[in-house]
């Protein structure tokens, strides 16, 4: 039977104050875990409420104004407070320094500051919730956002501040990866998780300032009416969309790259197979980071932008799919002849491959100019981005949470319940969102409160699916929390994986390593090195 280590980062110092002033990257990861999961819960509640309202074509229990506020808050909370920070701030903070053999990130205090900045940004968002809500949609498009009477300013200010939190984290990771790699950890011996985080950090640092300036312009426009987005004063409302998507398309890769980074770790660790095409995966992350900056106009095909611009953007959009395709093929090739263990993280990995492929391929449909004219602003879009963001990022995040949970807390969760929960989420997700592809192609517009009777069966089925998913998530909350009390100790290396974090105790000691670790083999050299699972050993 494995034993928990005597002292570790969780019990080395005690009391709330030791947590609120900690500069330990692992503890900061846990602070982020608690706060981000709280907002995931809030955003999730809005989702369930929205789907409930859509059960019937007519008003069920909220009026149209309220409906508009609900989808705005759902979207804004999920994007800015959950999915963008989730993987870098929680898993990245916790795992990245250990993976490269460092004792901490390069700027531990900045790291803590980023958490406080996140909390301040979150406060502003919550304030706008109580101060009458917002009804613009998470994209805050002008001219509506400059004229509506709801609290646009506080929520955009919130998103503005959250952007700084992202920048701090991104900057920290870039410097950490450049400066703190342990001896022998060359660039191409870095685990692919680190590559993914690095590419994400680059986008964060380059793109987040653009969001900042955009939201600031919007606020100034609202407060003093400088007219930059107002045609009556020589401005241009479509310019807002350029600004917004110049940030937000790269931002969708801030969301998915960390997910892809997790998949590379899980797929190798749970099939004990050397990754297929290490360099292709590493470089394609950088390729994605670059290509993501030149396709933003595919969100504006029907905005009235010039036909020339639309054609250029459509052409360029097809290129972003290439690096993603490269990754998917490499992952599938990695599985070939591996000894695949159907652990919970592996189930999430397989779910990811399936769902992300659907999400990515429908993106190609949307990138085709003429097809998009038909599909734009329908439920097809809603289905597309939920397949990439939930089917891709959230599924990868949940997989990563299960993969590193034993490392974070030193204890295992109940595998049977975990698999049931994964299954419920997978089935529920497809029920909820696949129907939306069909509805959308038939013309059901997005962001509508009331709808035509013909769509009733689809909407109803979609709502049932959301309940199945909700049950899956509740089950997950139950067994994960329970595992903290009576999960069986995991030992150092429950999966028999090769990266550095699995060679130290679970939970890790306060300073990660007693002696500086030396990297003498690649992160996925399962063909050369054998690491035994600490679960099956006894």
């Amino acid at each position, binding site marked *: 039977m494995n034993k928990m280590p005597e002292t570790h980062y969780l019990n080395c110092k005690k009391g709330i104050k030791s947590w609120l002033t900690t500069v330990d990257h692992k503890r900061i990861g846990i602070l982020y875990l608690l706060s981000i999961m709280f907002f995931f819960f809030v955003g999730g509640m809005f989702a369930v409420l929205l789907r409930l309202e859509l059960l019937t074509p007519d008003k069920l229990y909220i009026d149209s104004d309220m409906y508009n506020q609900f989808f705005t808050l759902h979207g804004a909370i999920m994007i800015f407070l959950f999915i963008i920070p989730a993987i870098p701030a929680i898993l990245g903070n916790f795992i990245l320094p250990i993976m490269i053999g460092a004792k901490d990130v390069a700027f531990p205090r900045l790291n803590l500051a980023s958490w406080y900045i996140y909390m301040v940004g979150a406060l502003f968002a919550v304030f706008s919730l109580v101060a009458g809500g917002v009804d613009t949609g998470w994209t805050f498009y002008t001219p509506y956002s400059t004229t509506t009477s709801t609290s646009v300013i506080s929520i955009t200010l919130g998103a503005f501040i959250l952007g700084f939190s992202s920048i701090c984290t991104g900057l920290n990771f870039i410097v950490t990866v450049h400066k703190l790699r342990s001896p022998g950890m060359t660039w191409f011996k870095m685990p692919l998780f680190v590559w993914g985080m690095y590419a994400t950090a680059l986008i964060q640092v380059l793109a987040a300032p653009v969001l900042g300036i955009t939201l600031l312009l919007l606020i100034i426009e609202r407060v003093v009416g400088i007219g930059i987005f107002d045609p009556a004063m020589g401005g241009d409302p479509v*310019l807002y969309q350029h600004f917004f998507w110049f940030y937000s398309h790269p931002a969708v890769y801030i969301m998915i790259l960390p997910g892809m980074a997790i998949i590379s770790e899980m797929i190798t660790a749970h099939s004990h197979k050397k990754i297929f095409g290490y360099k292709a995966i590493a470089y394609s992350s950088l390729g994605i980071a670059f290509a993501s900056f030149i396709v933003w*106009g595919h969100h*504006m095909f029907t905005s009235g932008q010039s036909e020339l611009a639309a054609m250029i953007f459509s052409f360029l959009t097809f290129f972003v799919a290439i690096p993603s395709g490269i990754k998917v093929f490499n992952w599938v090739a990695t599985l070939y002849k591996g000894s695949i263990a159907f652990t919970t993280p592996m189930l999430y990995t397989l779910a990811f491959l399936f769902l992300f492929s659907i999400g990515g391929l429908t993106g190609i449909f949307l990138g085709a100019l003429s097809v998009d004219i038909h599909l734009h602003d329908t439920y097809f879009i809603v289905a597309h981005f939920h397949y990439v963001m939930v089917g891709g990022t959230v599924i990868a995040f949940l997989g990563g949470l299960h993969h590193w949970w034993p490392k974070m807390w030193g204890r295992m969760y109940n595998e049977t319940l975990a698999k049931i929960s994964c299954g419920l989420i997978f089935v529920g997700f497809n029920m909820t969102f696949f129907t939306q592809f069909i509805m959308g192609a038939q013309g059901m517009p997005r962001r509508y409160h009331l709808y035509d009777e013909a769509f009733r069966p689809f909407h109803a089925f979609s709502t049932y699916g959301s309940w199945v998913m909700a049950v899956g998530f509740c089950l997950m909350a139950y067994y994960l929390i329970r595992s903290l009390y009576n999960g069986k100790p995991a030992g150092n290396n429950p999966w028999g994986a090769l990266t550095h974090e699995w060679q130290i105790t679970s939970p890790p000691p306060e300073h990660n390593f007693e002696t500086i670790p030396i990297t003498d083999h690649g992160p996925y050299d399962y063909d050369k090195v054998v690491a035994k699972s600490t679960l099956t050993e006894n």
Partner: protein
Amino acid sequence: MTENTHTNEPHVLPLSIYLGIGSILIFLTAGTVYAAGIDFGAYNLLIAMAIATIKASLVAMYFMHLKYDNKLYLLLFLSAIVFLAIFIVITMFDTLRRGDIYEIKSGAIRDAVIYDSLPADTTTHAIADSLSISTDTTDVVIDTTH
């Protein structure tokens, strides 16, 4: 590792360089003011921007030490400018070319001939014949009532 080539001591330049660069900046400011008084037509903006760019580069190179620091920082700085350029240029593909499609579509109308008096035969075919164009290619109905 190339990243460790500089030491942690602050890099100090002689005062004369600061003063020299400072006076060049003041001189160029005067240049901007002077140039603003002269009308170069289409080159107005270009000249003002050129002077501003030189000034900004001097500040970045000397006052912000980019010239003496690790070249990685220069690369980072320049990449930010590249990204800004991408943003502005591609956005201008939109803002400068908006409505072009109507220009193209309206070409036939714009080029249509307007008669002072009615031709003898006013069927479309006859008019097309007289202009020696094929009726298949004109999707424009020519108004023959005036």
